[in-house]
């Protein structure tokens, strides 16, 4: 056995630290700079509406801010004052007429929800808890199995 194996860890740590810090940088691939420049060029050539908002031209930034503020203000005003105008009641009636074909669907959904509520009430809390636990166990089993398969399949790559 090599006698150096018994050296205290602290000495090795200090020496390794010195050696690691003394390692020179690796040369970056020659493709790096062209890749970055191409990505920057692609960003620059993109139309203003495909760029992040803070990269928009200043006039458009101001216009968009004013537009959004105006829309928010209008929406707030409408919500606060709609009951004062008779046309809102008429509009609500009109809306009801438009949605009338959907009323059987709505009725079906409400009856289903009512039936489910009755079933849950009748089952009792212990059965509900058990069913929830079973669902959780089944879900975790799927996650565990998927993780195990993933890890076995790509073990070398990850580690």
């Amino acid at each position, binding site marked *: 056995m*090599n006698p*150096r*194996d018994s050296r205290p*860890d602290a000495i*090795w*740590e200090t020496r*390794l*630290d010195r*050696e*690691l*810090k*003394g*390692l*020179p*940088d*690796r*040369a*970056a*691939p020659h*493709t*790096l*700079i062209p*890749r*970055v*420049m191409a*990505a*920057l*060029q692609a*960003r*620059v050539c993109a139309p*203003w509406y495909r*760029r992040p908002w803070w*990269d928009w*031209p200043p006039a458009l930034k101001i216009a968009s801010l004013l537009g959004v503020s105006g829309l928010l203000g209008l929406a707030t005003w409408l919500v606060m004052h709609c009951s004062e105008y008779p046309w809102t009641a008429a509009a609500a009636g009109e809306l009801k007429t438009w949605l009338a074909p959907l009323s059987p669907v709505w009725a079906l959904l409400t009856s289903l929800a009512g039936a489910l509520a009755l079933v849950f009430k009748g089952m009792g809390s212990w059965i509900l808890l058990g069913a929830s636990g079973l669902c959780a166990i089944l879900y975790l089993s799927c*996650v*565990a199995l*998927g*993780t*195990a398969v*993933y*890890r076995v399949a790509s073990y070398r790559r*990850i*580690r």
Partner: protein
Amino acid sequence: MTGRMSDPLQFEAFMRNYQDMVFTAALRLVGNEADAEDIAQDVFLKAYTHFDQLRHSPTVGGWLKTVTRNLSLNHLTRYRARWRFFSECDDQGDRGEHHDFAANLPAPDMSTQAVDAADRRNLLESALQKLPAAQRVPLVLYHFDNLSYEEIASRLRVSLGKVKTDIHRGREALRQRLMRNPEAATA
């Protein structure tokens, strides 16, 4: 970015100055050249958005290193997230891999003459890259980025004990590798 690239030549010169440092920092953390290049590209794209402040900043190197470290750890986290559930209780597996690691490294030619400094550095760099990520990442954060054990544990969201164990195993793996080449170990 407002419709045209500002100072592309200056930015290119800036990249030339720092590309090796950024690429190396990423490579040591992720252990893969293609991923390191992707990360380096993201770092420089971020740098470009702050180029006006960075170009005259004396701390630009530190800024680049921090961004590189964060992006590299994010990259590793993305791949680790799905199996991390098991990784904390994987001590036996880690030990097994620890032995496999040293055994799987290419054996040095013991008949050769003294190993010079460049060879020693190559040997160390190669051994570092071949460490499993669980050992390499905390080792790199400790020795290259000067983070404390507590900072590493917090950054990697693992226990302090695991950080200490992984760093210790990483150092031991490197020692074993260098011990197989006495000239490298004593130089």
